[in-house]
């Protein structure tokens, strides 16, 4: 019995190592290998440089300064708020795009994805024209409700949500399309309204897709620069997020800029680690 089991295990191991050897022996063509390695180096070298030139000795001082903490706190709060806004508005929008049929749906879908490819600065200008004090909608917000968005923390959230929401919508829409719509049908035959079916059946089924989309949107919001600085300005403690602080620090205190960049790098790596089940395993 014991020997049988051992032969079985050996039998399972041998062909696998054989396959690995064969794959290596077949070789990678040089015209592919060289650019591939160059590409890898190109992606990794800047990050390595960041680590090599980091002012490790003075790092604690840089990271404990009030400005850094203000910027980090503002970044985290506004990115999270922008993600929340994206979830509340983006998930229903994704559902509409995936589950209903209305004239011009393809066009609407293209419009939703436009901020994905639009230069963020243009987005910021557009936001100013729409929601600025004299903007198309902004003038009414100001005169009726006394709400002013530009150059406020709320403005930061608006700018980040504008840029980040398409990531969430596209991700959730894809998950919805992959989910079997017949579960919703089954729910309606059990007496559930379409909204109840969405809330009690569809939402739990697509929760992983929503989570992935939210992380993607959050990461995008955290790194947002162009739209934020255009629409919300650069006031420390109010609208100066981490990316803005990094850019500003680079002008007069490069060591501080590197320290701030390290913090953002750490956050990015943490996000990647959180998503490894979704992305890393897909490639292996």
């Amino acid at each position, binding site marked *: 019995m014991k020997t049988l089991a051992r032969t079985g295990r050996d039998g399972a191991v041998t062909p696998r190592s054989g396959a690995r050897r064969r794959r290596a022996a077949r070789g990678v063509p040089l015209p592919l290998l060289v650019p591939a390695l160059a590409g890898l180096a190109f992606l990794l070298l800047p990050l390595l440089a960041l680590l090599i030139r980091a002012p490790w000795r003075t790092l604690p001082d840089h990271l404990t300064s009030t400005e850094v903490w203000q910027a980090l706190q503002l970044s985290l709060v506004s990115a999270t708020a922008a993600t929340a806004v994206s979830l509340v508005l983006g998930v229903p929008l994704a559902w509409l795009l995936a589950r209903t049929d209305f004239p011009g749906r393809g066009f609407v879908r293209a419009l939703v994805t436009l901020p994905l490819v639009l230069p963020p600065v243009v987005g910021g200008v557009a936001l100013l024209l729409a929601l600025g004090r004299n903007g198309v909608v902004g003038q009414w917000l100001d005169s009726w409700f006394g709400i002013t968005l530009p150059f406020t923390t709320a403005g930061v959230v608006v700018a980040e949500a504008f840029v980040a929401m398409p990531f969430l919508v596209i991700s959730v829409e894809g998950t919805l399309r992959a989910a*079997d719509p*017949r*579960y919703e*049908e*089954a*729910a*309606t*035959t*059990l*007496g*559930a*309204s*379409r909204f*109840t079916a969405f809330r*009690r*059946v569809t939402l*739990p*089924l697509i929760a992983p897709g929503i989570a992935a989309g939210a992380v993607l949107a959050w990461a995008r919001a955290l790194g947002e620069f162009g739209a934020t600085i255009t629409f919300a300005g650069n006031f420390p403690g109010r609208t100066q997020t981490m990316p803005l602080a990094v850019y500003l620090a680079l002008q007069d205190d490069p060591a501080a800029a590197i320290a701030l960049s390290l913090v953002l790098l750490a956050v990015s790596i943490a996000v990647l680690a959180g998503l490894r089940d979704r992305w890393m395993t897909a490639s292996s």
Partner: protein
Amino acid sequence: MTHTDETPAGVRAEDVPGEGLDARLVVARGAFRLDVALTARPGEVVALLGPNGAGKTTALRALAGLSPLTAGHLRLDGAALDRTPPEARPVGVVFQDYLLFPHLSALDNVAFGPRCQGASRTEARARAAEWLARMGLTDHAGAKPRRLSGGQAQRVALARALATRPRLLLLDEPLAALDARTRLEVRAQLRRHLAEFEAVAVLVTHDPLDAMVLADRLVVVEHGRVVQEGAPADIARRPRTDYIAQLVGLNLYRGQAEGHRVRLEAGPAVATTEELSGPAFVAFPPSAVTLHRDRPAAGSARNLWRCEVAGLETHGDQIRADLTGELALAADLTTVAAAELGLHPGAEVWAAVKAAQTHAYPA
């Protein structure tokens, strides 16, 4: 399309009592058009039987409200349901692959319907537990659907549909997703549960055995139309299309009856015991056919045709021979007989069928 109440079968809605199901389902989708009339009394189990693509599932979806009717009507216990959205119809559905909600336990799957109907969480769960107990699934109440076997999932799906107390229960290929052994067991259980069900049940299947075991009445659908309906035994005895004849394992021909003979549309005449006139069907089982190498002595009450073997296949412990020639027919014979006759594709044989073993009936 006009909204008349006249059905292809000539049954008028007024003739049908208010209780039960009275429907004429017309659904047009591209080139395909479904047009079937369906009536059933409470307590009756009706099977929609037909080949794939005949429109059975479309009919079921129309009954459930998942596909809109192009024309026709749908009344259940006297109430018109044509315009009622699916969630407001007193209709329960058991889907082919069950569609149990994967994120809910068996208990919460069954409690889903009562919850939607306004029961409190405790009340809904109590009702669900009752249904699971009736299905013998109390031990699996907490299990997620992926941990259930095929047979268990089927019973949870049935419990989930019944827990809404429907007046019409729809089952889409209820046994198709099961392996052969589970099927036997689940079929017997399903038969018991359907017998207890007091309202109308409509099941869709392409399996004649499922239909005959589970249903009181069969409605055979081909190309979106009803081609035959009646009690299972009648349909098995008097098939009216090639599809049904094949399902019930009969050789079927159509022709003109003249006394004790039916002259076939293409080919020879068949001697029968029944005396008929006019258009008629004549049917006989493959086991009634005897094959001979040399021409046997012909009797008056005996049919004899010169045929050629087109193909042979094993059929249980028998050999099924497909014959062409004067008459295309299937014949069953034992392996020994096949060997003695030296049957092979292309072999010439005489096929004989006694008149007493044929069955003729008006077309």
